[in-house]
């Protein structure tokens, strides 16, 4: 699996993502500077990491979405490439229009960093297939603007097309535990072709037993398996 991590000047989870991708894939993930205009050749996966791409003092991800490299990422996605956006990466993906909706300030108005529980709502995607029958996973969130919103029509399309990948829940899988007020408890969504995933929680931060959990790892394994069977 050949992967690359996009690096904006204010990215700060780029190394974490690079480590998680490299560990899963067994080959180093490339780092691609936002000012570059072309992605490396032969990529399977592009990851847009968390952080504060351009300080994000106003609309998170808005400036990042207009970086030179993003045009290349959009073309890559249009060709059916796999794109993963985590946290700020999710915000960037909504700002580029690759994913619908927007991420507003948390309902509690405060930054929130904690482990949350997620229901894996679909295993029918290149990002979630290794989660078996779905179930509940635990991964951290760390954001100030993770309150997902879209219009009702889009929400029913997302649900109808099985494009909600993860929802916040309680540890036992019941409704609740939403840290940011996101609509329909949405933590992550898929694109129409299911090859783009945007999510607020950080699977790359709990993919290592030393850090107290490995529930993020199957997401990267899903990608690897997808590539192996493609």
């Amino acid at each position, binding site marked *: 699996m050949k992967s690359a991590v996009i690096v904006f*000047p204010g990215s700060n989870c780029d190394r974490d993502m690079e480590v998680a991708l490299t560990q899963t894939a067994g080959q180093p993930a490339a780092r691609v*500077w936002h000012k570059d205009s072309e992605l490396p050749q032969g990529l399977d996966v592009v990851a847009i990491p968390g952080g*504060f791409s351009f300080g994000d003092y106003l609309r998170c991800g808005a400036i990042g979405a207009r970086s030179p490299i993003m045009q290349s990422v959009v073309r890559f996605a249009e060709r059916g490439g796999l794109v993963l956006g985590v946290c700020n990466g999710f915000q960037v993906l909504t700002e580029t229009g690759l994913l619908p909706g927007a991420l507003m300030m948390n309902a509690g108005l405060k930054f929130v*960093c904690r482990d949350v529980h997620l229901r894996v709502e679909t295993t029918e995607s290149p990002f979630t297939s290794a989660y078996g029958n779905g179930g509940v996973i635990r991964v951290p969130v*760390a954001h100030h603007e993770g309150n997902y919103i879209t219009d009702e029509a889009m929400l029913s399309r997302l649900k109808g097309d099985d494009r909600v990948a993860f929802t916040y829940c309680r540890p036992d899988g019941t409704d609740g535990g939403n840290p940011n007020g996101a609509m329909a408890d949405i933590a992550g969504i898929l694109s129409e072709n299911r090859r783009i995933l945007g999510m607020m929680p950080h699977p790359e931060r709990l993919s*290592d037993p030393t*850090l*107290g959990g490995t529930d993020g790892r199957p997401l990267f394994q899903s990608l690897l398996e997808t590539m192996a069977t493609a």
Partner: protein
Amino acid sequence: MSAKEPEVNQSLAADHGLKPDEYQRILDLLGRTPSFTELGIFSAMWNEHCSYKSSKIHLRTLPTDGPQVICGPGENAGVVDIGDGQAVVFKMESHNHPSYIEPYQGAATGVGGILRDVFTMGARPIAAMNALSFGAPEHPKTRSLVSGVVSGIGGYGNCFGVPTVGGEVRFHPAYNGNCLVNAFAAGLAEADQIFYSAASGVGMPVVYLGAKTGRDGVGGATMASAEFDETIEEKRPTVQVGDPFTEKRLLEACLELMASGAVISIQDMGAAGLTCSAVEMGDKGDLGVELDLDAVPCREEAMNAYEMMLSESQERMLMVLRPEKEAEAKAIFDKWDLDFAIVGKTIDEDRFLVRHGAEIKADLPLKALSGTAPEYDRPWEVTAAPSHLGDVPDLDIAEALKALIASPNLCSRRWVWEQYDNTVMADTVVRPGSDAAVVRVHGTEKGLAFTSDVTPRYCKANPVEGGKQAVAEAYRNLSATGAKPLATTDNLNFGNPEKPEIMGQFVGCIQGIGEACRALDMPIVSGNVSLYNETDGRAILPTPTIGAVGLLEHLDQVIPMAPKRGDILVLIGQTKGHLGQSALFWEIWGRDEGDAPPVDLRAEAKAGQLVRDFKAKGLISAAHDLSDGGLGIAAAEMALAAGIGVAVDGHASLAPLAWFFGEDQARYLVACPEAALAAMTEAAVATQVSLRRVGHVGGTEVVLGEASVALATLSDLHEGGFGALMGES
């Protein structure tokens, strides 16, 4: 801005915080009246914040050496060897005065300043902590200060991308008029790739890098060296505004620049900005510096020399670069879209020459600016013996436990740490809420542990024992996490040093800290002094915050705080039931009576070593240090961490309140399988540490002798305490 400069005289000097004798010293030094800009430069270099003029002679008594120390105090941060060619670089620094005036920006720029101190040395920041002291929860300003300071710390650290993994939050009416914000940062560097501030080479370009210079913070360091009064609101413009995004770019650019070999010396622009950094580089390198202010990137129009020299605009660096590397350096600055400019050069004479326009605005002997700064041996008096401990009222143990666990000073700090990104960088092994936080040394199986501690109640009652206790508690927190204590940074917050009783507190605490650091082999490698923490003549509690770092050779040595079901509980260390200055007396009855608990440093060293040995031998499953609230609170905290009940037996001869809530030092509560007890007892006897089995882990209640409280009830009280004091529930 009018071009006309004010006339320099004694009264203007007084407005700059310079005392008459200090002004006379300037006149004698120069043999003439200083220019307006020169006066500003002197006031910046000679204020308490920058010159340590009241504290220096006492700070010199602190132990700063050891085989592990690569660089002690005097540089931007301390550097300590952690083996394998790597070093941890750390420091703690206060941003008290600005945070009280403008909590969000004050705290944010405090974080920015300490991060810069660390990466200026060539280290990538890997952990941050902050020790916060606020006034009484019911004081009208407290909530807004807590809310602003916490979101400011989060706002800066989260964007920059350093995990904020620990710290302290305390409430006491003595901080009603002066909150304390002590920011700690630690970074990781190659031991042979540390960068220092001493310039070298004549005619070398002095390069300015980072954010543009504005009028923010002009006179900030001078403001931070004075008491507060009713005019405080007018001081808001002296607080700087932080831009963590620029700081992040500055970090990456500096590390790339250092790796390129272009950097000869580097100094961040912190307090007193351009003045302090340029003088520091010249002084340490025995060189003069010539600055051309026309080249300084400015954010505002028509800034004059005085303003540029005193601006405390954030996210700026000054460096001396190798001229032959200019093209590479420029490419790095351009990559990160950072402003840079060659603003001067090093010169071969003892001179600080500042030009602006066609004029020379300052022409001063450089060495004299730092070298001859005033130094005072201020009069001090020994702190009076503490009051006698009065009668202990009768109180049900279960009620005492519930009241303490919900109290503002002992309830869960989750409300605070959830606003800090504590897992970014994906190396946080032990998160906030434990004895010490542990961060993995990236790419290795080693860990660094971080804690910050002080008990100001103890320091007020007995500065010497209080000073010792702050270090001892840090030592315990590291040991209880399985780490070997390495070294220490101190952030000494006190009132007005011109008052002998305040100076006495300072001297006493330093004595205690020095003794403890020697006995526990935790040399002080960096630090900061914040004096004049007084409002309308009322001083804060003496608060010498100790930030300490420990090393875990392997992460399998981490000792969790949460015990396992079926474990037994074993108390290490001796209990006499010391209730003087205890949390029980203060939190429940509002009584700050009696002496601080005595600290036996030999007992501390032995007990800490024993706990680490137990872990190395695989005997224990959990450990927790005993501090505020003693055995009862420690047992409850372990139960809460595990979500499992605990039962602790009563004591045959001590009164229940003294046994469960006494605050004798050098104690730990550990959990282990019953089968381990024999081996542990043997080891304890051999090292003459007392050890006794006191209870077991299991059930759904916290049982203290005859009393019991449902764990669910305690959890609600503990978790809800902070939100309640913030008025959120």
